[in-house]
């Protein structure tokens, strides 16, 4: 896995911080900033946002001087699959219950693997996992989630 070199990283970090600080500053502009003696809700976000903007500028500036070579970001598939798995589970859990959500979770996570084994073995493993999960989380720990439900939003 190739890590981006310092320049690409600085640029990315700098832009990210600049963007975030912009959002924060805009979002907190509607709150009272107040004085140091009487700090309002907007004081901290504004102060921190301003600081973050400075750091962002510094990082972008640094990335333009110094180092060479563009950044490498590594394979995208694991990230996309894992995030997709979680998002799918997030949407499915309240609507369809535990079991369908876990099935989708495991299927998408499996896609994140660089190389996959035989399907049959995966099915057995998945069944075992889901059964264990249901027993432990709902049976033993008393988690408040239906195993199988149909509540379309």
């Amino acid at each position: 896995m190739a890590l981006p070199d310092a320049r690409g990283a600085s640029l990315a970090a700098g832009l990210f911080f600049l963007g975030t600080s912009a959002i924060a500053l805009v979002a907190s502009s509607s709150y009272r900033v107040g004085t140091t003696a009487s700090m309002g809700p907007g004081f901290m976000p504004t102060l921190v946002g301003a600081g973050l903007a400075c750091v962002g500028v510094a990082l972008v500036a640094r990335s333009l001087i110094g180092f060479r070579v563009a950044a490498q970001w590594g394979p995208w598939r694991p990230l996309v699959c894992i995030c997709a798995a979680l998002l799918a589970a997030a949407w499915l859990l309240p609507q369809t219950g535990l079991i369908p959500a876990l099935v989708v979770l495991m299927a998408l996570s499996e896609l994140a693997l660089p190389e996959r084994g035989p399907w049959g073995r995966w099915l057995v493993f998945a069944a075992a996992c889901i059964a264990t999960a249901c027993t432990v989380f709902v049976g033993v720990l008393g988690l408040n989630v239906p195993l199988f439900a149909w509540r379309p939003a």
Partner: protein
Amino acid sequence: MIDQLLLGFGAALTWANLLVCLVGVFLGTLVGVLPGVGPLVTISVLLPFTFGLGPMAGIIMLAGIYYGAQYGGSTTAILVNMPGEASSVVTAIDGYKLAQKGKAGQALAMAAVSSFAAGTLATLLVALFGIALSQLALSFGPPEYTLLLALGILGSLGLSRAPLLQSVGGVLFGLLLACVGADVATGAPRLAFGIPELADGLGLVAVALGLYGVTEVVRVLSAPAGGAAAATTEGIRPRLSAEELRAGIAPTLRGTAIGSLLGVLPGGGAAIASFVAYMVERKVNRQRSHFGQGELAGVAAPEAANNAAAQTSFVPLLALGIPANAVMALMLGALMIHGVSPGPQFADKQPALFWGLIASMWIGNLILLVLNLPLVGLWVRLSRIPYRYLLHIVMICTCVGAYSVNASGFEVALVALFALLGWFFLRAQVDPITVILAFVLGGALEENLRASLAASRGDFSVFYMRPVSLALLLAGAALIAFFAASRSGGWRESDA
């Protein structure tokens, strides 16, 4: 103090707590044995499941995981040259050589015994210093708290392995995350962007799981796969001769001293402690020419150090409310979620919990010793589970754990978001420890800052006119100087 320690033992020695400790230590060793899953990931994943346990049992379990992981990592370091934890890397140097010479039993036994001895001594130190620090801390007011929290956040800059600018950015970003949610004084929802679930702020679970747990999963999946080394499990019954035991005393004591000291300092921790202890032992030990070819002292010193550091890193947390490293930050979050605020008042207001936690540390060490020696064969077999199976276990625990916080899929979606962020931070060379520490401490920092300035009507002199504040300011300056002098400026590969 003795009767307080006894009070602690009384509180800790319930069957329920012992069971929970056992589970934690077992899980921790398991996790330590498995490469690709560390105590940080495990603690963040299991955090929501400890909510039903109550503060003492919950922390006991999480702490058990923490030092169980140290030991598990050492087992695989010795047996198959695969350190499961960063703190076991040095143990592998002499440990694996010993195993290759057929002396794996001695190495494992030495690791276990020196860890236990170090843990016992360190627990005593924690008992001693905890009180001293707490009594000092009773004189704390909002200005002192503010500076203390700022010091803690500053310490994360030392913990960070990222370039300075990105670390500062990470801290500020974490502070911003802490601002999300209801403002304490006015109740106005800040930075919530109209999303009702955010009105109460971001949960630690989602942030920790995403930034650490899932990011680590993605990282392992993105790295070129490595093969597990085959190893024999024969001839590894742990045993030591009296001669070897005696030779191990001095390295263990040296390792304990170094580990105890480094565990307390922000920026310290088990990994650094074990490296330093090994280096020192190499300089000091009479057998130094044998180091690197299978020398028991080369196992005893780093093992003692990493266990001692794991214990003493609780001191700043329990006595001052400052986490000394990432795991302690999660412990702090866990305690806060249970409604406990560790800090200067803690020992005074809740002595049973405070001393109970300290007592349980020693109990955990004992369980480690008793539990693990017979189970070595099992651990080795388990260390060879391919990641393709482990992945799903981690994902399921993450998903269900996050969901269980609020019985809402929103938290799970948040985990996905923070996982994306975590991946980005990895590439952009921002160390997530800076973000998490600032996030955990940011709320209290703002409150105390506001209170200090409100009381002094905007006068900043309150931060240097009082003796304790001044001392803290000077400590902060010293810390900055220390960091400036020792920063190597390079980005080192993640080893959590």
